[in-house]
């Protein structure tokens, strides 16, 4: 009977392989039991209608989790999804626009190429947003399904069926420990912009001098040498991004967050100081420019030394100050 076949198929279609055949046989037997001996198509229809919607029955049979992200994680998922997709889209759009500003159009400048640029902007932005959504979703599905054994280790995430004790209670947030979300968002965008400039247009970092032909850029960095630093810069930027998302989610300082934050800023300081000291990266010629350094050639090397030292000192002071400040915040108690 074709109707029975189709009904049984509809119920078992989505079931796991190992139970499919058994359910199929049993359900078919049950349906045949419910029919009179010499049944007509009308009888079959009546029995199937009595059984009801096959998808509903299939759902009752289904032993797997029937959701990707459960209620315990759902609101967190949504917050992070909005944040990450929003940031990625903003930054992608910003980087694209920056790209246009710094690469003057040559031929075919006209309404048609503007339309093309505009549609390209929309396209990359939407693509960025979709990519971000995909990865955020994947991460949360992994947490939900307890893949990679990470679920229990994430702060603020507890599954409802885990055993619970009073020590699991969250501490009431102390206002002075708060990491403002707007600040975090700004930091994310800033980090991405700086990274994008260093990666795509490093020659833009320098001193702009106005002269008769418009602006001339005296680049600070030697582009060839910069290539050697790029992997470190990108890794650190990624590290920072993860840290920012973490800050955005937990919103309040804690010791572990502080430790990772400090590791990140120490690494960045080291990188900055190493780069400043690299004469192949920042050539003496940069300091030997009469337009903005009123010094004679003989004092250039000396001058550079001083600038680099002062720079290193500033970096160290800021890093230490920032670490102490953040540490004090983690220690603060409710007023």
């Amino acid at each position, binding site marked *: 009977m074709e109707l029975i076949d189709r009904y049984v198929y509809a119920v078992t279609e989505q079931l796991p392989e190992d139970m499919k055949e058994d359910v199929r*046989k049993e359900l078919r037997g049950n349906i045949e039991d*419910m029919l009179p001996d010499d049944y007509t198509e009308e009888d079959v229809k009546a029995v199937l209608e009595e059984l009801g919607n096959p998808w509903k029955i299939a759902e009752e049979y289904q032993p797997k989790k029937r959701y990707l992200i459960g209620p315990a994680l759902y609101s967190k998922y949504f917050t992070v999804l909005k944040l990450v997709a929003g940031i990625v889209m903003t930054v992608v759009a910003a980087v694209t626009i920056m790209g246009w500003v710094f690469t003057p159009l040559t031929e075919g400048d006209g309404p048609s190429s503007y339309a093309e640029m505009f549609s390209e902007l929309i396209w990359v932005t939407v693509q960025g947003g979709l990519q971000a959504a995909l990865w955020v979703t994947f991460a949360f599905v992994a947490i939900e399904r307890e893949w990679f054994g990470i679920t229990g280790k994430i702060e603020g995430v507890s599954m409802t069926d885990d055993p619970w004790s009073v020590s699991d209670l969250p501490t009431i947030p102390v206002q002075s420990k708060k990491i403002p979300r707007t600040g975090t968002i700004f930091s994310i965008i800033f980090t991405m912009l700086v990274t994008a400039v260093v990666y795509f247009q490093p020659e833009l970092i320098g001193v702009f001098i106005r002269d008769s032909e418009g602006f001339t850029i005296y680049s600070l960095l030697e582009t060839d040498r910069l290539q050697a630093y790029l992997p470190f810069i990108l890794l650190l930027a990624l590290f920072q991004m993860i840290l920012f998302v973490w800050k955005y989610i937990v919103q309040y300082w804690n010791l572990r967050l502080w430790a990772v934050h400090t590791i990140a800023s120490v690494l960045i300081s080291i990188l900055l100081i190493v780069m400043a000291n690299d004469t192949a990266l920042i050539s003496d010629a940069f300091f030997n420019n009469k337009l903005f350094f009123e010094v004679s050639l003989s004092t250039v090397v000396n001058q550079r030394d001083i600038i680099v030292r002062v720079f290193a000192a500033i970096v160290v002071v800021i890093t230490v100050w920032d670490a102490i400040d953040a540490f004090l915040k983690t220690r603060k108690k409710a007023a």
Partner: protein
Amino acid sequence: MDSTEELINSLMVELKRGTLVLLVLSQLHQPEYGYSLIQKLEEKNAPIEAGTLYPLLRRLEKQQLLKSEWDTTESRPRKFYMLSEQGKEVYAKLKSEWQTLSQQLAAILMEENV
């Protein structure tokens, strides 16, 4: 009102759902197959929807409260379910819990009627 009706309906479904397992376990001291169980419950004025019962039997089997066996001696193969040892134990416990609960509830509801 329509929404009150709907609410009552969904609450009724929830109430009944809790008793389904007890109802099904109570009938499985002897082996039964899906349709025979439906008929049996219908005769006892406790009809259960076929679409609910079949998946439920399977779930109880997976929880090891029921054991099952295919009977292929008849013209049509049938899967028979019966209480396992664990199932008997769970049933006895559930039954006494239910009796306590229904007595308590009856007493409380009675009180309110006064």
